[in-house]
């Protein structure tokens, strides 16, 4: 099976990346040490090739109402161009089809950025709903764009060192806001819990961007570090923490669903009618070992399951996100079945780490 490649594939190979198949794309897992790359993002600046994700531009007089119908969060909140929103896209039954970021752009247009593994599914879904709406909505998948996430406390500064001409347009950006700067679309968003930019630009310009950022001291970082960073930041991974069988209430995303006005969005009725079957919280392991997806969690209120588990380089211990019985809250004790042993853990409210700081109580209780 031939894997798809991003415009930065040659750069990754030249840098000695360990390449793996991710959602049908050949992507860098790491460039030597995923732990080093993780620390570099938390302490300085790192960059990720995320060109496998898909931007879809949505235009036309009916664009806003269309998005207010297909997204669980409400784009009416994007009152001026440049604002962005994190949202789930739901199926009729309330299950999550994908999580995405939607940006308002000039002229009543929007851009959504969806996950690589769900890109085709999302596109088909949006196109069929657009046809059904019979309103003036045009969808344009932007396969011509590359995407690079530059993240870390020094990320923006190093980005401006590489591209001083973008400073005027992008320095004023608040978090979750975006601006055009030349042929770049620059958003102050990310998936690491650190400050930084996600940049979308023509594929032909990607290598130049990557090289200029390396020259300005931004380290290349791979998907493995991306996963440990987002886990520490308490950010969900679609396909692991949630899928079509899980509602936003059951994966910690109730805050992304906007019920504040009588808007008919897909999945609303199902969410209103069906009770939450489980809660979703974090786990901190007290013992040595690493929690992993699908391991069983035992609590005083019943059993749960780890959805995402791993090792936190910042805290030097194992952390996880897990489905837990609805009655369980932060502070509860739990045992996690790791390789045949019942290891001791405590339930915490994510995020674990943001902006380089540990936010949970890491003292080990006897």
């Amino acid at each position, binding site marked *: 099976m031939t894997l798809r490649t991003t415009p930065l594939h040659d750069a990754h190979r030249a840098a000695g990346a360990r390449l793996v198949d991710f959602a049908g794309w050949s992507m860098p897992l*790491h460039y030597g*040490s*995923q732990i080093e790359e993780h620390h570099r993002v938390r302490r300085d600046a790192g960059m990720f090739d995320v060109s496998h994700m898909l931007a879809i531009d949505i235009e036309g007089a009916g664009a806003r109402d269309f998005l207010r119908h297909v997204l669980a969060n409400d784009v009416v909140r994007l009152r001026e161009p440049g604002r962005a929103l994190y949202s789930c896209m739901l199926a009729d039954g309330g299950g999550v089809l994908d999580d995405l970021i939607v940006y308002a752009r000039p002229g009543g247009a929007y851009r959504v950025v969806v996950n690589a593994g769900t890109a085709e599914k999302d596109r088909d879904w949006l196109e069929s709903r657009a046809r059904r709406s019979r309103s003036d909505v045009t969808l344009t998948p932007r396969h011509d764009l590359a995407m690079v996430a530059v993240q870390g406390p020094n990320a923006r500064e190093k980005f401006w060192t590489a591209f001083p001409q973008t400073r005027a347009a992008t320095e004023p950006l608040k978090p979750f806001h975006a601006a055009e700067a030349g042929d770049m679309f620059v958003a102050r968003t990310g998936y690491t819990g650190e400050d930084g930019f996600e940049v979308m630009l023509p594929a032909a310009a990607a290598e130049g961007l990557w090289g200029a950022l390396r020259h300005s001291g931004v380290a290349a970082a791979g998907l*493995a570090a991306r996963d440990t960073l987002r886990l520490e930041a308490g950010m969900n991974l679609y396909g692991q923490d949630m899928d079509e069988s899980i509602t936003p209430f059951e994966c910690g995303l109730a805050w992304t669903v906007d019920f504040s006005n009588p808007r008919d969005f897909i999945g609303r009725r199902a969410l209103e009618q069906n009770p939450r079957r489980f809660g979703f919280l974090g786990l901190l392991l007290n013992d040595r070992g690493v929690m992993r997806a699908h391991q069983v969690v035992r609590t005083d209120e019943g059993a749960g399951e780890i959805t995402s588990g*791993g*090792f936190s380089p910042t805290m030097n211990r194992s952390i996880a996100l897990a489905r837990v019985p609805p009655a369980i809250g932060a502070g509860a004790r739990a045992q996690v079945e790791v*390789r045949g042993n019942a290891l001791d853990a405590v339930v915490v409210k994510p995020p674990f780490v943001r902006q380089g700081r540990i936010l949970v109580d890491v003292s080990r209780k006897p």
Partner: protein
Amino acid sequence: METPQNLKYTDSHEWVRQEADGTVTVGITDHAQAQLGDVVFVENPEPGRTVRKGDECGVIESVKAAADIYAPLSGEIVAANNELTDTPAKINSQPYEAWMFRIKPSDPGELSKLLDAAGYEKIADADRH
């Protein structure tokens, strides 16, 4: 990929070094550490324990996966490298110096059954594909 000529190997990716006092020192190969990725925990067998060749006698946990370590020979565990508790990453950076444990072999005949460097390289190559 480094495979020192002076060591012996198992098909489960352990290296074995014969010491002057008759004991053997055991660790994991460069190929094994590259497959595992960044090591975060090392569980060594207890000194004093008797093992049979092929017994599970340790665990290396990386960010990516957990790997069981098997006794390459039968005998008694006479030492374990406690340094690895604080610096597990040494297994990645210096796989042939970051020894895990030492065995006093009980069956000298087993030594000849271990692989030499060339024999191990064939296994590592096959494992990579």
